[in-house]
């Protein structure tokens, strides 16, 4: 059951990602990105991370992608024009990407024993487990990260503000 769901949503995820690249219209690409993110949420849920799954849907598919579509609609962006990119991209693009993929998978596979494991199945990390880790064991790093994000927000506001 878990495996079947995993296959369905993994295929959906990859299909969405491919469609994102192939579509010519920005709004179709944005919608494909929503599909990718929502199917990622299902994959998280299958791995037992229920809070992460919900947060993925609320934050990424809900809030951030609404802003993406909002901007696309506001600018009324038209179809992407086909441009001739640099020759280097034509020649080295696919082989480069393939080489990078091969390298990364080689590293991950050879170092498999050193990573932690996550299994598809009945295991469930509850919200209280997660909050115990975040607010007790890792309190300082968590708060420092929040302050960092806050500084980034303030910086963005300061940059965007017009001087009168």
């Amino acid at each position: 059951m878990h495996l079947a769901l995993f296959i369905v949503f993994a295929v959906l995820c990859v299909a969405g990602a491919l469609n994102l690249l192939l579509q010519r219209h920005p709004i179709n690409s944005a919608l494909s990105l929503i599909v990718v993110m929502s199917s990622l949420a299902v994959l998280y849920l299958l791995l037992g991370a229920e809070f992460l799954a919900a947060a993925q849907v609320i934050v990424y598919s809900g809030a951030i992608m609404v802003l993406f579509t909002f901007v696309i609609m506001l600018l009324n962006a038209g179809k992407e024009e086909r441009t001739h990119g640099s020759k280097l991209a034509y020649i080295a693009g696919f082989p480069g990407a393939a080489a990078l993929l091969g390298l990364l998978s080689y590293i991950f596979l050879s170092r498999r024993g050193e990573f932690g494991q996550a299994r598809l199945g009945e295991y469930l990390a509850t919200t209280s487990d997660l909050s115990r880790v975040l607010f007790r064991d890792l309190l300082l790093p968590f708060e420092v990260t929040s302050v960092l994000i806050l500084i980034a927000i303030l910086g963005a506001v300061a940059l965007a503000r017009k001087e009168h």
Partner: protein
Amino acid sequence: MDTSLIPFLLFNLAKVIVVVVLLLMCVAYTVLLERKLVGRIQNRWGPSRVGPFGLLQPLVDGLKLFLKEDLMPEAVYRPLYILAPIIALSCALLSISVIPFGADIRWHGMQFFQISDNNIGLLILLGITSIGVYGIALSGWSSNNKYSLLGALRASAQVISYELALGLSLVGVVIRTGSLRLRDIVGVQAPHGLLSWNFFGGFQFVAFFIYLMAAYAETNRSPFDLPEAESELTAGYHTEYSSMKFAMFFMAEYGNMITVGCVATLLFFGGWTSPFGSFFHFGTGPVATALFSIFWFVAKVFGFLFLYIWVRGTLPRFRYDQLMGFGWKFLLPVAVANIVVTSFCIGLRLPMQ
């Protein structure tokens, strides 16, 4: 596992069908209730010709919408134009699946009054609400009409702004319960009736008013109905829709209203528990418990629908800048203050661990 899988699937399928049919019936009669009440508020009768007191009006309306010609303008972007009402309606129907309607009554371990009982029910509701805005946004954009586009832009901005206040207003309730499961949230409010409801006993009335206002904005209802403001934008995001596609937006709007009423009932007004707590017993046994829990739940949700319609009939629409200022400068800080005060009070009461 395999032997119990088929009855489990059948039982759940039956539950889903019953709930969806009931929800759509409720939607139809909420429309009638709205027309009747707004009629009385405006000193006229409302629908009164079809059936006794106009009670058959929803059926005739449904038939009318089915039989109308389904016009599709030339310049629309077809795939999204067709997809948009489907997204809107399916999100409205999905969110009812985590809502418990009545007491925890089981038969062979299968729950009667809830489709899906899970640990993060509240978060799922928030997630579905945040996806629902795509229905409106895409319908406005794909219609290729200036008014529709303006409505869609307004809807996106409004929903993003008020979602924050909505989510933050629920944190106080979650802190008090210590769980995101909707049945646990109701369970905490059960013991002393009215006195242990989050609204009275939990001192969450500030959170409740923030939730109420943010939820009105999320469902695009008056006084926050800027996306379809008929005096400015013809009909806003659904100007170019007709027949069943228009009806789907309509059903989505009223379905969301009912969901908001259910969530407010569950989170702040004790869900299906009676307001008298354990002082009065209305009979024991599973049947009586089931009937009374359903009765209280429906009565409370009906109260919220009544409030929705009353507000629509009496309040004028916000201006756009007022809407944004109200959401960001008033609701959001008050919601954050509510979280701070609530967690402080609860922290003082708990022993140090």
